[in-house]
């Protein structure tokens, strides 16, 4: 493992044991999928780490070059399968940018609604599985109870529980009604109460704080250099959220919301606890966004009439290229589509947030204990479906 920064053990004071090469994964519950991390251990301390990805490579970019623009939307579902709505949105916006069209206003508000609901569901998984990683099993069941409600809500409008294919170029697949929005409001009220429960059970738990504070410290400079985005970047103290700074949907311009950043409450800025706490506070912002969106949603059509006709024949955008960035639960997802006037793009690149967030892992692990390494991986909240595509 040359070319890696090695953590040197102090041979005079530390107990010296023989070095060991250890494989964490690919079949290990704490790696959240099929990630293999090759570790060099000195006793309990990790001296070098190298992550090995690609076990879930499904040729998503190659497929993109062989299907039409609309046929690719369901494939984006399967990248970050915990936040399918957000992926659909990013791809739809890319195609819309390429076609130089804009979705009707009502559909933009519906998009905000479903995307924020999905963001809560995604952060709930991060919260629940992080508890399991650190030996707390109960929060997982709490998280899945609320996630189940969100999945039921989204199933009502899209027909699918996880892989929605709901947001499409030109608008959304179905319109929503007032009864559904009332249910969403009821869920939000319920969720805010549950959120306090989560904090009682995990956030302020003494053992949990001891396991996460001052562990895996990611400095602001390092986060920027490695291209970390989303909660991982914000936990390092960078107040940046695409929804606020470059609003890619009109409603984000009109809705008031706060961007939580890490503060180093229990340890150092950018440690595992900060990353966890940024996600937790983001969930509260999501419910606030949803309430404002429901209050302000205008009447209108959910899908551009012109687009509906275009659905009958494949779209053929003018030659050109579009790069579209979106704020996903895990960071900035970007699609880069290059058209040469044909029915499918000649290049269909996905810049996955988990891919970039994971690349910093090799630098974070050296010097930590093995058990803390699990805490670091969990705090990055990666989805391997998106890393490998």
């Amino acid at each position, binding site marked *: *493992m040359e070319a890696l920064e090695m953590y040197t053990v102090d041979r005079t004071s530390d107990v010296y044991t023989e070095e060991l090469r250890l494989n964490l994964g690919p079949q290990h519950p704490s790696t959240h999928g099929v990630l293999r991390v090759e570790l060099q251990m000195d006793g309990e301390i990790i001296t070098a780490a190298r992550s090995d990805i*690609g076990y879930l490579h499904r040729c998503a970019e190659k497929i993109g070059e062989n299907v039409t623009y609309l046929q690719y939307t369901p494939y984006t579902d399967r990248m970050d399968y915990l936040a399918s709505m957000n992926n659909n949105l990013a791809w739809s916006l890319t195609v819309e940018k390429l076609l130089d069209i804009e979705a009707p206003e009502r559909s933009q508000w519906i998009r905000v609604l479903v995307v924020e609901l999905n963001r809560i569901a995604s952060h709930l998984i991060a919260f629940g599985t992080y508890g399991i990683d650190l030996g707390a099993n109960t929060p997982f069941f709490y998280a899945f109870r609320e996630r189940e409600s969100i999945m039921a809500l989204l199933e009502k409008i899209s027909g699918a529980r996880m892989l929605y294919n709901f947001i499409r170029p030109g608008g959304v697949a179905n319109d929503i009604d007032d009864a559904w929005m009332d249910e969403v409001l009821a869920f939000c009220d319920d969720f805010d109460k549950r959120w306090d429960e989560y904090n009682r059970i995990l956030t302020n738990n003494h053992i949990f704080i001891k396991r996460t504070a001052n562990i895996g410290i990611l400095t602001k400079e390092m986060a920027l250099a490695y*291209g970390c985005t989303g909660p991982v970047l914000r936990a390092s103290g960078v107040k940046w959220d695409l929804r606020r700074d470059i609003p890619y949907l009109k409603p984000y311009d009109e809705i008031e919301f706060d961007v939580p950043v890490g503060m180093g409450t229990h340890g150092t800025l950018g440690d595992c606890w900060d990353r966890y706490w940024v996600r937790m506070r983001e969930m509260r912002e999501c419910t606030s966004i949803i309430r404002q969106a429901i209050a302000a949603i205008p009447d209108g059509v959910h899908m551009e009439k012109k687009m509906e006709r275009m659905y009958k024949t494949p779209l053929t955008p003018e030659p050109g290229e579009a790069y579209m960035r979106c704020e996903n639960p895990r960071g900035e997802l970007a699609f880069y589509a290059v058209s040469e006037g044909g029915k499918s793009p000649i290049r269909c690149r996905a810049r996955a947030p988990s891919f970039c967030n994971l690349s910093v892992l090799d630098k974070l692990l050296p010097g930590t204990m093995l058990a803390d390494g699990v805490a670091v991986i969990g705090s990055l909240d990666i989805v391997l479906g998106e890393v490998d595509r």
Partner: protein
Amino acid sequence: MNESEIISRMREAGLGGVGELDTSAADPFVVIEADSLRAAMLFLRDDEACAMEMMHCVTATERKASIEVVYHLCSYEHHHSLTVKVICERPEGGTHDNWRPAVPTVADIYAAANWHEREQYDLLGVIFTDHPDFRRILLPQEWIGHPLRKDYIYPSEHGGIPLELDAIPLYMEGGEEAVAAKKAERPAGEPLNQPPSKYSARPDAGGKAPESSEGKVNNSRDSAH
């Protein structure tokens, strides 16, 4: 600053090889010569007015006459972004088998580029010279070829197991009837839209290696065990 201001600032600083801003696409981009790429990237990162602290994405795109390496940069401080392209012209008769375009690496300038460049090498065979850890990232180290190249041929077997390639084109002129007709004329065991190749994905595991030396990738990881 907008893109044209950034480019004029680069010119003022005396950077050579910086082309004109192309505004024909939805995202304007600037073409930079491969030789001056590293100097330009260093300038974009360190200059106070540019302050592009984030390498957002590195993409290689194969076109008919060239392979473009596209760098998407952005600045959180100033809320601006820039798309930089390096164009590698296709030599006469340059194909998947014999042409690997080379571009200097920027992995030491932007750490984020490290994995992105490895991925673009893996899928499109672009060589990033002086990269600190130049290996495949998604595919197995012993894989032959770069699948995102347009003239890539699917392997006919993997590890000695023949691959039953049933690649149905999802869209064909003439609709479903055309697809059905194409399927009917297909002999059993033969892929639909690709000629069967004589290559194997993994010659180490008993398959047939192609004649080019591409398969003999130096697999440093295995030798370390």
